[in-house]
Protein backbone atom coordinates (compact mmCIF):
# COMPACT_ATOMS: atom_id res chain seq x y z
CA UNK A 1 0.00 0.00 0.00
CA UNK A 2 1.48 3.32 -1.00
CA UNK A 3 0.18 6.45 0.63
CA UNK A 4 2.61 9.30 0.34
CA UNK A 5 0.79 11.73 2.57
CA UNK A 6 3.07 12.73 5.43
CA UNK A 7 0.86 13.06 8.45
CA UNK A 8 1.31 14.79 11.79
CA UNK A 9 -0.99 14.07 14.70
CA UNK A 10 -1.09 16.62 17.51
CA UNK A 11 -1.92 15.08 20.85
CA UNK A 12 -0.74 11.59 21.80
CA UNK A 13 -3.75 10.63 23.89
CA UNK A 14 -6.18 7.84 23.02
CA UNK A 15 -7.70 9.67 20.04
CA UNK A 16 -4.42 11.00 18.67
CA UNK A 17 -2.66 7.64 18.97
CA UNK A 18 -5.65 5.95 17.36
CA UNK A 19 -5.61 8.36 14.42
CA UNK A 20 -1.85 7.75 14.08
CA UNK A 21 -2.60 4.02 13.83
CA UNK A 22 -5.17 4.61 11.08
CA UNK A 23 -2.77 6.73 8.99
CA UNK A 24 0.24 4.45 9.52
CA UNK A 25 -1.78 1.35 8.70
CA UNK A 26 -2.65 2.98 5.36
CA UNK A 27 1.05 3.53 4.64
CA UNK A 28 1.50 7.16 5.69
CA UNK A 29 4.60 8.24 7.55
CA UNK A 30 3.29 9.72 10.80
CA UNK A 31 4.74 12.09 13.39
CA UNK A 32 3.01 12.01 16.74
CA UNK A 33 3.39 15.27 18.64
CA UNK A 34 2.78 16.07 22.27
CA UNK A 35 4.16 18.56 24.77
CA UNK A 36 6.63 16.27 26.53
CA UNK A 37 8.56 13.08 25.88
CA UNK A 38 6.62 11.04 28.42
CA UNK A 39 3.30 11.73 26.69
CA UNK A 40 4.74 11.04 23.28
CA UNK A 41 6.26 7.79 24.52
CA UNK A 42 2.95 6.76 26.03
CA UNK A 43 1.22 7.42 22.70
CA UNK A 44 3.84 5.48 20.75
CA UNK A 45 3.32 2.65 23.23
CA UNK A 46 -0.42 2.62 22.35
CA UNK A 47 0.48 2.52 18.64
CA UNK A 48 2.99 -0.31 19.09
CA UNK A 49 0.70 -2.44 21.22
CA UNK A 50 -2.17 -1.94 18.77
CA UNK A 51 -0.06 -3.22 15.87
CA UNK A 52 1.36 -6.06 17.99
CA UNK A 53 -2.22 -7.10 18.75
CA UNK A 54 -3.17 -6.80 15.05
CA UNK A 55 -0.38 -9.23 14.17
CA UNK A 56 -1.34 -11.55 17.02
CA UNK A 57 -4.95 -11.65 15.86
CA UNK A 58 -3.89 -12.19 12.26
CA UNK A 59 -5.38 -8.90 11.09
CA UNK A 60 -1.96 -7.89 9.73
CA UNK A 61 1.10 -9.96 8.90
CA UNK A 62 3.93 -9.56 11.40
CA UNK A 63 5.93 -7.73 8.75
CA UNK A 64 3.13 -5.31 7.87
CA UNK A 65 2.47 -4.66 11.53
CA UNK A 66 6.17 -4.00 12.24
CA UNK A 67 6.43 -1.71 9.22
CA UNK A 68 3.30 0.21 10.19
CA UNK A 69 4.52 0.68 13.76
CA UNK A 70 7.90 1.83 12.43
CA UNK A 71 6.18 4.50 10.33
CA UNK A 72 5.14 6.36 13.47
CA UNK A 73 7.71 8.63 15.05
CA UNK A 74 7.40 10.93 18.04
CA UNK A 75 8.20 14.66 18.29
CA UNK A 76 7.95 17.26 21.02
CA UNK A 77 8.83 20.30 18.89
CA UNK A 78 6.35 21.72 16.37
CA UNK A 79 9.29 22.84 14.19
CA UNK A 80 9.82 19.23 13.20
CA UNK A 81 6.47 19.20 11.41
CA UNK A 82 7.68 21.57 8.67
CA UNK A 83 7.26 19.18 5.75
CA UNK A 84 4.03 17.31 6.53
CA UNK A 85 1.02 17.31 4.17
CA UNK A 86 -1.76 16.78 6.69
CA UNK A 87 -1.93 17.79 10.33
CA UNK A 88 -4.63 16.24 12.50
CA UNK A 89 -5.18 18.10 15.74
CA UNK A 90 -6.48 15.82 18.52
CA UNK A 91 -5.59 17.69 21.71
CA UNK A 92 -8.00 18.13 24.65
CA UNK A 93 -11.41 19.61 23.87
CA UNK A 94 -10.57 23.15 24.98
CA UNK A 95 -11.08 26.00 22.52
CA UNK A 96 -8.15 28.10 23.73
CA UNK A 97 -5.69 25.21 23.71
CA UNK A 98 -6.73 24.29 20.18
CA UNK A 99 -6.64 27.87 18.89
CA UNK A 100 -3.22 28.57 20.35
CA UNK A 101 -1.76 25.34 19.06
CA UNK A 102 -3.04 25.88 15.52
CA UNK A 103 -1.73 29.45 15.50
CA UNK A 104 1.75 28.21 16.45
CA UNK A 105 1.50 25.32 14.02
CA UNK A 106 0.61 27.43 11.01
CA UNK A 107 3.88 29.34 11.33
CA UNK A 108 5.75 26.05 10.93
CA UNK A 109 3.95 23.94 8.35
CA UNK A 110 3.92 24.53 4.61
CA UNK A 111 1.20 26.90 3.36
CA UNK A 112 -0.53 24.09 1.49
CA UNK A 113 -0.65 21.60 4.36
CA UNK A 114 -4.18 20.62 5.39
CA UNK A 115 -5.06 21.32 9.00
CA UNK A 116 -7.67 18.99 10.45
CA UNK A 117 -9.28 19.43 13.81
CA UNK A 118 -10.73 16.38 15.54
CA UNK A 119 -13.22 18.22 17.67
CA UNK A 120 -16.51 16.68 18.72
CA UNK A 121 -18.29 19.61 20.32
CA UNK A 122 -16.46 22.82 19.42
CA UNK A 123 -16.99 25.00 16.38
CA UNK A 124 -14.53 24.45 13.55
CA UNK A 125 -14.91 28.11 12.64
CA UNK A 126 -14.02 29.16 16.18
CA UNK A 127 -11.01 26.84 16.31
CA UNK A 128 -9.77 28.35 13.02
CA UNK A 129 -10.55 31.93 14.06
CA UNK A 130 -7.04 32.97 15.05
CA UNK A 131 -5.07 31.37 12.22
CA UNK A 132 -4.14 33.48 9.21
CA UNK A 133 -5.09 30.73 6.75
CA UNK A 134 -8.44 29.40 7.95
CA UNK A 135 -9.28 28.25 4.40
CA UNK A 136 -7.30 25.06 4.98
CA UNK A 137 -8.77 24.18 8.36
CA UNK A 138 -11.36 21.38 8.19
CA UNK A 139 -13.22 19.57 10.97
CA UNK A 140 -12.68 15.80 10.88
CA UNK A 141 -14.36 14.02 13.76
CA UNK A 142 -13.14 10.44 14.20
CA UNK A 143 -14.97 7.99 16.47
CA UNK A 144 -13.40 6.27 19.46
CA UNK A 145 -11.63 3.82 19.23
CA UNK A 146 -10.35 5.32 15.97
CA UNK A 147 -8.47 2.23 14.71
CA UNK A 148 -11.70 0.20 14.82
CA UNK A 149 -14.26 2.80 13.79
CA UNK A 150 -14.39 3.70 10.12
CA UNK A 151 -16.59 6.77 10.39
CA UNK A 152 -15.33 10.33 10.10
CA UNK A 153 -17.66 13.33 10.20
CA UNK A 154 -16.35 16.11 7.98
CA UNK A 155 -17.39 19.70 8.62
CA UNK A 156 -16.09 22.85 6.97
CA UNK A 157 -15.69 26.05 8.92
CA UNK A 158 -17.10 29.27 7.46
CA UNK A 159 -13.78 30.04 5.81
CA UNK A 160 -12.78 26.57 4.64
CA UNK A 161 -11.90 26.61 0.92
CA UNK A 162 -13.42 24.09 -1.51
CA UNK A 163 -9.94 22.79 -2.39
CA UNK A 164 -9.25 21.98 1.26
CA UNK A 165 -12.60 20.23 1.57
CA UNK A 166 -11.95 18.10 -1.51
CA UNK A 167 -8.38 17.31 -0.49
CA UNK A 168 -9.65 16.29 2.94
CA UNK A 169 -12.15 13.86 1.46
CA UNK A 170 -9.45 12.39 -0.78
CA UNK A 171 -7.06 11.99 2.16
CA UNK A 172 -9.69 10.33 4.36
CA UNK A 173 -10.64 7.93 1.58
CA UNK A 174 -6.96 7.12 1.05
CA UNK A 175 -6.64 6.00 4.66
CA UNK A 176 -9.76 3.85 4.39
CA UNK A 177 -12.28 5.89 6.35
CA UNK A 178 -15.99 6.25 5.58
CA UNK A 179 -16.98 9.90 5.28
CA UNK A 180 -20.17 11.69 6.12
CA UNK A 181 -20.36 15.37 5.27
CA UNK A 182 -22.05 17.64 7.74
CA UNK A 183 -22.13 21.24 8.87
CA UNK A 184 -20.15 23.15 11.48
CA UNK A 185 -22.98 22.90 13.99
CA UNK A 186 -22.75 21.79 17.61
CA UNK A 187 -22.38 18.01 17.91
CA UNK A 188 -22.25 17.43 14.12
CA UNK A 189 -24.48 14.40 13.45
CA UNK A 190 -23.54 11.84 16.09
CA UNK A 191 -23.49 13.87 19.28
CA UNK A 192 -26.31 16.06 17.97
CA UNK A 193 -28.60 13.04 18.16
CA UNK A 194 -26.90 10.86 20.77
CA UNK A 195 -26.78 13.41 23.60
CA UNK A 196 -30.51 14.28 23.66
CA UNK A 197 -31.27 10.57 23.31
CA UNK A 198 -29.12 9.65 26.32
CA UNK A 199 -30.52 12.55 28.33
CA UNK A 200 -34.08 11.49 27.46
CA UNK A 201 -33.32 7.96 28.68
CA UNK A 202 -31.88 9.32 31.94
CA UNK A 203 -34.97 11.48 32.44
CA UNK A 204 -37.26 8.53 31.67
CA UNK A 205 -35.43 6.55 34.34
CA UNK A 206 -35.86 9.34 36.86
CA UNK A 207 -39.53 9.63 35.90
CA UNK A 208 -40.05 5.95 36.71
CA UNK A 209 -40.90 4.92 33.15
CA UNK A 210 -38.67 1.91 33.59
CA UNK A 211 -35.67 0.62 35.49
CA UNK A 212 -32.02 0.63 34.40
CA UNK A 213 -32.44 -3.05 33.59
CA UNK A 214 -35.80 -2.82 31.80
CA UNK A 215 -34.81 0.16 29.65
CA UNK A 216 -31.47 -1.44 28.79
CA UNK A 217 -33.25 -4.66 27.82
CA UNK A 218 -36.03 -2.93 25.87
CA UNK A 219 -33.96 -0.55 23.74
CA UNK A 220 -31.71 -3.15 22.05
CA UNK A 221 -34.66 -5.56 21.63
CA UNK A 222 -36.97 -3.00 20.06
CA UNK A 223 -34.59 -0.68 18.27
CA UNK A 224 -31.57 -2.78 17.34
CA UNK A 225 -29.07 -0.73 19.31
CA UNK A 226 -25.90 -2.65 20.22
CA UNK A 227 -26.45 -1.92 23.91
CA UNK A 228 -28.85 -0.07 26.15
CA UNK A 229 -28.35 3.61 27.03
CA UNK A 230 -27.13 2.99 30.57
CA UNK A 231 -24.51 0.40 29.59
CA UNK A 232 -23.25 2.92 27.04
CA UNK A 233 -23.20 5.77 29.56
CA UNK A 234 -21.20 3.63 31.97
CA UNK A 235 -18.61 3.07 29.25
CA UNK A 236 -18.54 6.72 28.15
CA UNK A 237 -18.31 7.90 31.75
CA UNK A 238 -20.72 10.27 33.48
CA UNK A 239 -18.06 12.99 33.67
CA UNK A 240 -17.52 12.85 29.91
CA UNK A 241 -21.25 12.75 29.21
CA UNK A 242 -21.75 15.76 31.48
CA UNK A 243 -19.02 17.68 29.72
CA UNK A 244 -20.27 16.95 26.21
CA UNK A 245 -23.89 17.66 27.20
CA UNK A 246 -23.01 20.92 28.90
CA UNK A 247 -20.94 22.10 25.99
CA UNK A 248 -23.72 21.45 23.50
CA UNK A 249 -26.27 23.02 25.83
CA UNK A 250 -24.15 26.16 26.16
CA UNK A 251 -24.17 26.54 22.39
CA UNK A 252 -27.72 25.45 21.59
CA UNK A 253 -29.62 26.60 24.70
CA UNK A 254 -32.00 23.73 24.12
CA UNK A 255 -32.95 21.96 27.37
CA UNK A 256 -32.78 18.53 25.75
CA UNK A 257 -29.00 18.91 25.79
CA UNK A 258 -28.77 19.96 29.44
CA UNK A 259 -27.39 17.19 31.66
CA UNK A 260 -30.23 15.87 33.85
CA UNK A 261 -29.77 16.26 37.62
CA UNK A 262 -29.13 12.53 38.06
CA UNK A 263 -25.90 12.92 36.12
CA UNK A 264 -24.63 15.49 38.58
CA UNK A 265 -25.67 13.38 41.57
CA UNK A 266 -23.81 10.40 40.16
CA UNK A 267 -20.71 12.52 39.57
CA UNK A 268 -20.95 13.89 43.13
CA UNK A 269 -21.07 10.31 44.39
CA UNK A 270 -18.05 9.34 42.30
CA UNK A 271 -20.20 6.90 40.30
CA UNK A 272 -18.69 7.75 36.92
CA UNK A 273 -19.24 4.37 35.29
CA UNK A 274 -16.98 1.45 34.52
CA UNK A 275 -13.80 3.34 35.23
CA UNK A 276 -14.73 3.85 38.88
CA UNK A 277 -16.38 0.45 39.29
CA UNK A 278 -19.85 1.89 39.61
CA UNK A 279 -22.23 3.90 37.49
CA UNK A 280 -25.72 2.69 36.63
CA UNK A 281 -24.31 -0.80 37.24
CA UNK A 282 -21.63 -2.11 39.59
CA UNK A 283 -18.47 -3.65 38.14
CA UNK A 284 -15.71 -5.80 39.58
CA UNK A 285 -13.57 -5.13 36.56
CA UNK A 286 -12.96 -1.50 35.60
CA UNK A 287 -11.32 -2.21 32.25
CA UNK A 288 -13.34 -0.92 29.32
CA UNK A 289 -12.56 -3.24 26.44
CA UNK A 290 -11.69 -6.67 27.91
CA UNK A 291 -7.99 -7.14 28.56
Amino acid at each position, binding site marked *: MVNTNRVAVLGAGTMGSGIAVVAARAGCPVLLYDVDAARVERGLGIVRSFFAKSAQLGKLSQEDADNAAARVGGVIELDQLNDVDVVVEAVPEDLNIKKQLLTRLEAVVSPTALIHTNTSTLSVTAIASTVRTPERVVGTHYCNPAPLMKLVEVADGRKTAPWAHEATLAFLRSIGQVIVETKD*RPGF*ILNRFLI*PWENACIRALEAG*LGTVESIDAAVP*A*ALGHPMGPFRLLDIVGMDVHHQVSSRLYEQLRDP*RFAPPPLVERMIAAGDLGRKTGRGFYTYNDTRLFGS
Partner: protein
Amino acid sequence: MAGTFQRIGILGYGKMGGGIAQVCAQAGCEVVVLDINANQIAAGQARVADFLAEGVRRGKVTADQRAEVLARIRGVEAAEGLAGVELVIEAATERRDVKRELLTRVAAAVGEDAIITTNTSAISVTDLATSVTRPERFAGLHFFNPAQLMKLVEIVAALQTSEETVTRLNGFVGAIGKLPIVVKDRPGFLINYLLMPYLNDVIQELDNGLASAEDIDTAIKLGLGYKQGPLELLDLIGLDVHNHATHSAYEATLDARFAPPALLQAMVAAGRIGNKSGQGFRTTEAKA
Protein backbone atom coordinates in the same frame (compact mmCIF):
# COMPACT_ATOMS: atom_id res chain seq x y z
CA MET B 1 -49.91 -23.63 25.73
CA ALA B 2 -48.51 -20.29 26.70
CA GLY B 3 -48.46 -19.69 30.44
CA THR B 4 -51.97 -19.85 31.82
CA PHE B 5 -53.64 -19.05 28.54
CA GLN B 6 -54.58 -21.75 26.05
CA ARG B 7 -57.26 -20.03 23.96
CA ILE B 8 -56.44 -16.58 22.60
CA GLY B 9 -58.76 -14.20 20.77
CA ILE B 10 -57.25 -11.60 18.45
CA LEU B 11 -59.30 -8.65 17.23
CA GLY B 12 -58.30 -7.64 13.72
CA TYR B 13 -56.60 -9.76 11.05
CA GLY B 14 -54.37 -7.01 9.71
CA LYS B 15 -50.59 -7.19 9.61
CA MET B 16 -50.25 -6.76 13.38
CA GLY B 17 -53.16 -9.04 14.32
CA GLY B 18 -51.94 -11.76 11.97
CA GLY B 19 -48.41 -11.50 13.31
CA ILE B 20 -49.58 -11.79 16.91
CA ALA B 21 -51.86 -14.69 15.97
CA GLN B 22 -48.92 -16.50 14.42
CA VAL B 23 -46.70 -15.93 17.46
CA CYS B 24 -49.40 -17.31 19.79
CA ALA B 25 -50.10 -20.30 17.54
CA GLN B 26 -46.40 -21.08 17.28
CA ALA B 27 -46.31 -21.18 21.09
CA GLY B 28 -49.03 -23.83 20.98
CA CYS B 29 -52.11 -21.72 21.69
CA GLU B 30 -55.43 -22.07 19.91
CA VAL B 31 -56.13 -18.73 18.27
CA VAL B 32 -59.41 -17.23 17.09
CA VAL B 33 -59.12 -14.07 15.00
CA LEU B 34 -62.09 -11.75 14.63
CA ASP B 35 -62.50 -9.52 11.61
CA ILE B 36 -65.44 -7.90 9.88
CA ASN B 37 -65.85 -10.11 6.83
CA ALA B 38 -64.64 -13.21 5.01
CA ASN B 39 -62.41 -11.20 2.68
CA GLN B 40 -60.48 -9.61 5.54
CA ILE B 41 -60.10 -13.00 7.18
CA ALA B 42 -58.91 -14.65 3.98
CA ALA B 43 -56.38 -11.85 3.40
CA GLY B 44 -55.10 -12.19 6.98
CA GLN B 45 -54.81 -15.95 6.68
CA ALA B 46 -52.95 -15.62 3.40
CA ARG B 47 -50.45 -13.24 5.00
CA VAL B 48 -49.71 -15.67 7.84
CA ALA B 49 -49.49 -18.58 5.40
CA ASP B 50 -47.04 -16.62 3.25
CA PHE B 51 -44.94 -15.58 6.21
CA LEU B 52 -44.66 -19.20 7.30
CA ALA B 53 -43.96 -20.38 3.74
CA GLU B 54 -41.00 -18.01 3.72
CA GLY B 55 -39.96 -19.53 7.07
CA VAL B 56 -40.05 -23.00 5.50
CA ARG B 57 -38.02 -21.79 2.53
CA ARG B 58 -35.38 -20.38 4.89
CA GLY B 59 -35.38 -23.49 7.04
CA LYS B 60 -36.75 -21.71 10.13
CA VAL B 61 -39.78 -24.00 10.36
CA THR B 62 -40.69 -27.34 8.76
CA ALA B 63 -43.64 -27.74 6.41
CA ASP B 64 -45.36 -29.84 9.11
CA GLN B 65 -44.89 -27.13 11.71
CA ARG B 66 -46.29 -24.60 9.28
CA ALA B 67 -49.39 -26.72 8.75
CA GLU B 68 -49.83 -27.21 12.51
CA VAL B 69 -49.54 -23.49 13.22
CA LEU B 70 -52.03 -22.60 10.48
CA ALA B 71 -54.43 -25.25 11.80
CA ARG B 72 -54.39 -23.58 15.23
CA ILE B 73 -55.61 -20.25 13.85
CA ARG B 74 -59.29 -19.81 13.01
CA GLY B 75 -61.06 -16.73 11.67
CA VAL B 76 -64.50 -15.60 12.83
CA GLU B 77 -66.79 -12.78 11.71
CA ALA B 78 -68.88 -12.37 14.87
CA ALA B 79 -67.79 -11.55 18.41
CA GLU B 80 -69.78 -14.55 19.65
CA GLY B 81 -67.18 -16.73 17.94
CA LEU B 82 -64.72 -15.65 20.62
CA ALA B 83 -66.66 -17.32 23.45
CA GLY B 84 -64.32 -19.38 25.60
CA VAL B 85 -61.11 -17.47 24.91
CA GLU B 86 -59.07 -16.68 28.02
CA LEU B 87 -57.09 -13.78 26.64
CA VAL B 88 -58.14 -11.15 24.12
CA ILE B 89 -55.57 -9.07 22.23
CA GLU B 90 -57.15 -6.19 20.35
CA ALA B 91 -55.26 -5.18 17.20
CA ALA B 92 -57.90 -3.25 15.28
CA THR B 93 -57.62 0.11 13.54
CA GLU B 94 -55.87 2.75 15.64
CA ARG B 95 -59.06 4.74 16.29
CA ARG B 96 -60.44 5.33 19.74
CA ASP B 97 -64.11 5.07 18.80
CA VAL B 98 -63.59 1.86 16.81
CA LYS B 99 -61.60 0.24 19.60
CA ARG B 100 -64.03 1.24 22.35
CA GLU B 101 -67.08 -0.05 20.55
CA LEU B 102 -65.31 -3.29 19.65
CA LEU B 103 -63.93 -3.88 23.15
CA THR B 104 -67.35 -3.37 24.74
CA ARG B 105 -68.91 -5.87 22.34
CA VAL B 106 -66.13 -8.42 22.77
CA ALA B 107 -66.05 -8.09 26.57
CA ALA B 108 -69.72 -9.09 26.62
CA ALA B 109 -69.03 -12.12 24.41
CA VAL B 110 -65.99 -13.54 26.20
CA GLY B 111 -67.21 -13.39 29.78
CA GLU B 112 -65.90 -11.68 32.89
CA ASP B 113 -62.93 -13.96 33.54
CA ALA B 114 -61.09 -13.31 30.28
CA ILE B 115 -58.19 -10.92 30.36
CA ILE B 116 -58.57 -8.22 27.72
CA THR B 117 -55.66 -6.32 26.23
CA THR B 118 -55.08 -3.75 23.55
CA ASN B 119 -52.14 -3.54 21.18
CA THR B 120 -52.63 0.19 20.76
CA SER B 121 -49.54 2.33 20.42
CA ALA B 122 -51.17 5.73 20.49
CA ILE B 123 -54.34 5.62 22.58
CA SER B 124 -54.51 5.78 26.37
CA VAL B 125 -54.93 2.28 27.79
CA THR B 126 -56.61 3.76 30.86
CA ASP B 127 -59.22 5.33 28.60
CA LEU B 128 -59.82 2.09 26.67
CA ALA B 129 -60.10 0.19 29.98
CA THR B 130 -63.30 2.10 30.73
CA SER B 131 -64.97 0.47 27.72
CA VAL B 132 -65.06 -2.98 29.38
CA THR B 133 -66.65 -4.35 32.54
CA ARG B 134 -64.18 -5.28 35.33
CA PRO B 135 -61.44 -2.95 33.97
CA GLU B 136 -58.90 -4.43 36.42
CA ARG B 137 -58.52 -7.27 33.90
CA PHE B 138 -57.60 -4.83 31.15
CA ALA B 139 -54.06 -3.83 30.10
CA GLY B 140 -51.99 -2.83 27.11
CA LEU B 141 -49.99 -5.53 25.34
CA HIS B 142 -47.87 -3.65 22.89
CA PHE B 143 -46.13 -5.79 20.27
CA PHE B 144 -43.70 -4.23 17.82
CA ASN B 145 -43.93 -4.61 14.06
CA PRO B 146 -43.32 -7.23 12.68
CA ALA B 147 -44.63 -9.09 15.72
CA GLN B 148 -43.17 -12.41 14.53
CA LEU B 149 -39.63 -11.04 14.67
CA MET B 150 -39.58 -8.35 17.31
CA LYS B 151 -38.65 -9.63 20.77
CA LEU B 152 -40.02 -6.87 22.94
CA VAL B 153 -43.58 -6.63 24.26
CA GLU B 154 -44.57 -3.71 26.49
CA ILE B 155 -47.14 -4.59 29.14
CA VAL B 156 -48.94 -1.34 29.82
CA ALA B 157 -50.47 -1.04 33.25
CA ALA B 158 -53.49 1.25 33.11
CA LEU B 159 -54.64 2.99 36.30
CA GLN B 160 -57.27 0.24 36.66
CA THR B 161 -55.06 -2.77 35.85
CA SER B 162 -54.66 -5.22 38.75
CA GLU B 163 -51.34 -6.70 39.87
CA GLU B 164 -52.69 -10.12 39.03
CA THR B 165 -53.40 -9.11 35.45
CA VAL B 166 -49.87 -7.77 35.04
CA THR B 167 -48.36 -10.92 36.56
CA ARG B 168 -50.36 -13.21 34.28
CA LEU B 169 -49.48 -11.20 31.18
CA ASN B 170 -45.82 -11.23 32.18
CA GLY B 171 -45.94 -15.03 32.31
CA PHE B 172 -47.75 -15.18 28.99
CA VAL B 173 -45.30 -12.92 27.15
CA GLY B 174 -42.36 -14.98 28.41
CA ALA B 175 -44.12 -18.20 27.41
CA ILE B 176 -44.58 -17.07 23.79
CA GLY B 177 -40.85 -16.39 23.62
CA LYS B 178 -40.93 -12.63 23.94
CA LEU B 179 -39.28 -10.21 26.33
CA PRO B 180 -41.83 -8.49 28.61
CA ILE B 181 -41.31 -5.11 30.22
CA VAL B 182 -43.91 -3.41 32.37
CA VAL B 183 -44.43 0.24 31.49
CA LYS B 184 -46.61 3.14 32.49
CA ASP B 185 -49.61 4.30 30.50
CA ARG B 186 -48.03 7.38 29.04
CA PRO B 187 -48.19 8.51 25.41
CA GLY B 188 -45.72 6.27 23.59
CA PHE B 189 -45.30 4.05 26.67
CA LEU B 190 -41.53 3.55 26.93
CA ILE B 191 -40.03 2.82 23.52
CA ASN B 192 -42.08 5.20 21.39
CA TYR B 193 -41.89 7.83 24.11
CA LEU B 194 -38.13 7.77 23.58
CA LEU B 195 -38.14 7.07 19.84
CA MET B 196 -40.60 9.66 18.52
CA PRO B 197 -38.76 12.81 19.67
CA TYR B 198 -35.52 11.37 18.31
CA LEU B 199 -37.09 10.69 14.90
CA ASN B 200 -38.72 14.13 14.85
CA ASP B 201 -35.40 15.70 15.72
CA VAL B 202 -33.69 13.87 12.85
CA ILE B 203 -36.40 14.93 10.37
CA GLN B 204 -36.09 18.56 11.50
CA GLU B 205 -32.30 18.52 11.18
CA LEU B 206 -32.55 16.90 7.76
CA ASP B 207 -34.84 19.76 6.74
CA ASN B 208 -32.33 22.18 8.29
CA GLY B 209 -29.62 20.83 6.02
CA LEU B 210 -27.39 19.28 8.68
CA ALA B 211 -26.47 16.46 6.28
CA SER B 212 -28.03 14.27 3.59
CA ALA B 213 -30.48 11.53 4.62
CA GLU B 214 -27.96 8.93 3.54
CA ASP B 215 -25.12 10.50 5.53
CA ILE B 216 -27.28 10.79 8.65
CA ASP B 217 -28.14 7.09 8.43
CA THR B 218 -24.52 6.15 7.74
CA ALA B 219 -23.26 8.18 10.69
CA ILE B 220 -25.77 6.65 13.09
CA LYS B 221 -25.13 3.09 11.91
CA LEU B 222 -21.34 3.25 11.79
CA GLY B 223 -20.85 5.67 14.66
CA LEU B 224 -23.38 4.24 17.11
CA GLY B 225 -23.76 0.68 15.83
CA TYR B 226 -27.55 0.90 15.41
CA LYS B 227 -28.91 -1.72 13.00
CA GLN B 228 -30.90 0.92 11.15
CA GLY B 229 -30.48 4.60 10.49
CA PRO B 230 -33.36 6.82 11.61
CA LEU B 231 -34.48 7.76 8.12
CA GLU B 232 -34.56 4.24 6.74
CA LEU B 233 -36.39 3.26 9.93
CA LEU B 234 -38.99 5.95 9.22
CA ASP B 235 -39.43 4.63 5.68
CA LEU B 236 -40.00 1.17 7.13
CA ILE B 237 -42.44 2.29 9.83
CA GLY B 238 -44.32 4.44 7.33
CA LEU B 239 -44.24 8.21 7.55
CA ASP B 240 -48.03 8.26 7.86
CA VAL B 241 -47.88 5.89 10.82
CA HIS B 242 -45.17 7.90 12.54
CA ASN B 243 -47.02 11.14 11.81
CA HIS B 244 -50.20 9.78 13.36
CA ALA B 245 -48.41 8.41 16.42
CA THR B 246 -46.36 11.51 17.14
CA HIS B 247 -49.36 13.76 16.50
CA SER B 248 -51.39 11.75 19.02
CA ALA B 249 -48.60 12.03 21.58
CA TYR B 250 -48.38 15.75 20.92
CA GLU B 251 -52.11 16.21 21.42
CA ALA B 252 -51.98 14.27 24.67
CA THR B 253 -48.95 16.07 26.10
CA LEU B 254 -48.60 19.39 24.27
CA ASP B 255 -44.89 18.60 24.46
CA ALA B 256 -43.17 20.21 21.46
CA ARG B 257 -40.79 17.27 21.09
CA PHE B 258 -43.73 15.23 19.79
CA ALA B 259 -44.98 17.87 17.36
CA PRO B 260 -44.80 16.52 13.79
CA PRO B 261 -42.07 18.46 11.94
CA ALA B 262 -43.17 20.42 8.88
CA LEU B 263 -41.18 18.19 6.53
CA LEU B 264 -42.92 15.08 7.90
CA GLN B 265 -46.33 16.62 7.29
CA ALA B 266 -45.28 17.68 3.79
CA MET B 267 -44.01 14.19 2.94
CA VAL B 268 -47.30 12.65 4.11
CA ALA B 269 -49.28 15.26 2.15
CA ALA B 270 -47.28 14.40 -0.97
CA GLY B 271 -47.96 10.69 -0.50
CA ARG B 272 -44.29 9.97 0.09
CA ILE B 273 -44.84 7.75 3.08
CA GLY B 274 -41.92 5.34 2.85
CA ASN B 275 -41.35 1.81 1.58
CA LYS B 276 -45.02 1.03 1.03
CA SER B 277 -45.47 3.97 -1.34
CA GLY B 278 -42.12 3.56 -3.05
CA GLN B 279 -40.98 7.01 -1.96
CA GLY B 280 -39.75 8.25 1.36
CA PHE B 281 -36.63 9.72 2.90
CA ARG B 282 -34.40 6.93 1.61
CA THR B 283 -36.68 4.87 -0.60
CA THR B 284 -37.00 5.84 -4.23
CA GLU B 285 -39.43 4.38 -6.71
CA ALA B 286 -36.61 2.66 -8.54
CA LYS B 287 -35.83 0.66 -5.41
CA ALA B 288 -39.39 -0.27 -4.48
